[in-house]
């Protein structure tokens, strides 16, 4: 039944333009991240390891994704869930034996798969843009992969929260408002003390950052994988419990 539910969700994405929304957001992230590559000051350091051109690009990527990812997951969740409110889909599914919690899990799976494609593509495009712009300093791909994986995991966790929110609150402006708030929190969490960032769901964009701004430029940072694991586990439990409770909700 779960596989059927996922297949049905894929069918429902038709004309919802979630792929287009994702593609536009990826393009925007790449454009915003790489905007600085065109400046003369940046280009001057492309062959100087001391100028840290890759680190600069990655830090830029971290900031832009912390700002845009909360919005992207809010938009995707809202589009995919609102159709159930508008089309009496919850009831249609329930009388077919497909409970709302399972429907939410199917939605999260489909949108999560989309993000699982979008995030690596987006990361690869940023790296390719750096290479195309002429950065000749050797690239450390490990740190980019590490960040991309962390980013994807945080996106997936927030996606689950937004799918649940969109399902429970019919007015999708609420979810979008939370996404907007998340965008601010995401960016500012990069400037927050780590203990404070870990309290906020959007603070985990900072937790997975592999770099920090130091007095002498960018310094490597070991992402808080332990905290990330706890965060993911908490979200997974909350999503499971919320889905179970949702199944028991009366129409």
């Amino acid at each position, binding site marked *: 039944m779960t596989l059927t539910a996922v297949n*049905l969700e894929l069918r*429902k994405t038709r004309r919802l333009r979630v792929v287009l929304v994702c593609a536009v957001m990826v393009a925007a992230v790449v454009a915003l991240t790489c905007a600085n590559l065109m400046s003369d000051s940046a280009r001057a350091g492309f062959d100087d390891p001391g100028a840290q051109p890759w680190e600069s690009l990655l830090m830029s990527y971290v900031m832009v994704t912390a700002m845009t990812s909360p919005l992207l997951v809010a938009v995707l969740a809202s589009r995919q869930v609102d159709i159930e409110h508008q089309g009496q889909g919850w009831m249609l599914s329930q009388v*077919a*034996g497909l409970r709302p919690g399972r429907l939410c899990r199917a939605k999260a799976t489909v949108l999560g798969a989309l993000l699982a494609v979008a995030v690596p593509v987006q990361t690869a495009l940023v790296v390719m843009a750096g290479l195309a712009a002429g950065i000749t300093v050797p690239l450390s791909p490990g740190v980019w992969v590490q960040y991309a994986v962390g980013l994807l995991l945080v996106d997936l966790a927030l996606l689950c929260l937004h799918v649940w929110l969109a399902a429970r609150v019919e007015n999708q402006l609420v979810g979008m408002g939370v996404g907007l708030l998340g965008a601010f929190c995401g960016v500012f969490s990069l400037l927050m003390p780590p203990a404070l960032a870990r309290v906020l769901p959007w603070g985990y964009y900072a937790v997975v950052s592999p770099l920090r701004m130091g007095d002498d430029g960018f310094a490597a940072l070991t992402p808080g994988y332990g905290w990330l694991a706890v965060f993911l586990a908490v979200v997974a439990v909350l999503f499971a419990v919320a889905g179970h409770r949702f199944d028991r909700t*009366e129409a």
Partner: protein
Amino acid sequence: MNDVITTHHLTKTYGPRTVVDDLELRVPQGCVYGFLGPNGSGKSTTMKMLLSLARPSRGEITLLGRPMNRETRPALLREIGSLVEAPPGYAHLTGRENMVIVQRMLGLSDRQVSRAVATVRLQEHMDKLVRAYSLGMKQRLGIAMALAREPRLLILDEPTNGLDPAGIEEIRGLLVSLAEDGVTVMVSSHLLDEIDRMASVLGILGRGRLVFQGTRAELFDRSTPDLLVDTPEPGRALALGVPAVRSERGLRLSGLGDDDTAALVRRLVGADVPVHGVRRVQQSLEEVFMDLTGREGLL
């Protein structure tokens, strides 16, 4: 005749408020069962409980001869088509794409889907987006979704809401023909006339309680026809304190039994009020309904 739906002490409360109270429904097989009641009388809640969309606070439900519970629910729901509240349909998809979703959800064959679409005569509009459908077309699509599984029981909550007279007539004809084919149809409405023209069995709900259940003829048997007293001097009769209203040719009295009628005539004659005639007049279905539901709903 077997009952397709039976409920025993079915009750639903929300906090201190009892919405459905001790319902004993009996829906016979192969009929159109008209479920009537004013707005807020508990019709939709009852239907939701029948479909497991709401949990009864008390009581039992038996559908198609099997008790409705967690174990039997999936199998039972596969045999029940339903339309509760607004008609379902994803607006961004075409009618055909919507039907495919239902088909995959229930594992139906192409033949079943085509037949359901043909039954509601929606074939020509299947490639249009549902957002471009009229309300009538949406209702028909919703009914097609309910019919696609070839249900033995169809539960429809106000399926003609918002339809124009032609649309209402079309849905009415469709439901009657389904019943003729052996499908039991339970249809709710707060519009008496609509139900009266298609239902063979009526269930009337008032303030959450079943105030009547049976055929139209049984309903009239239970009602007391009004009494018309022909008199040229109705004012004198009213001055005697007779509980009547003026009518074209005298007075009209409701709810008077045979003994009371005899006593009334004796009283009028004794007071020298000229009585030219006394006759019974059958109440309209609407009047019977209003009496039963305590005149709480406009129809």
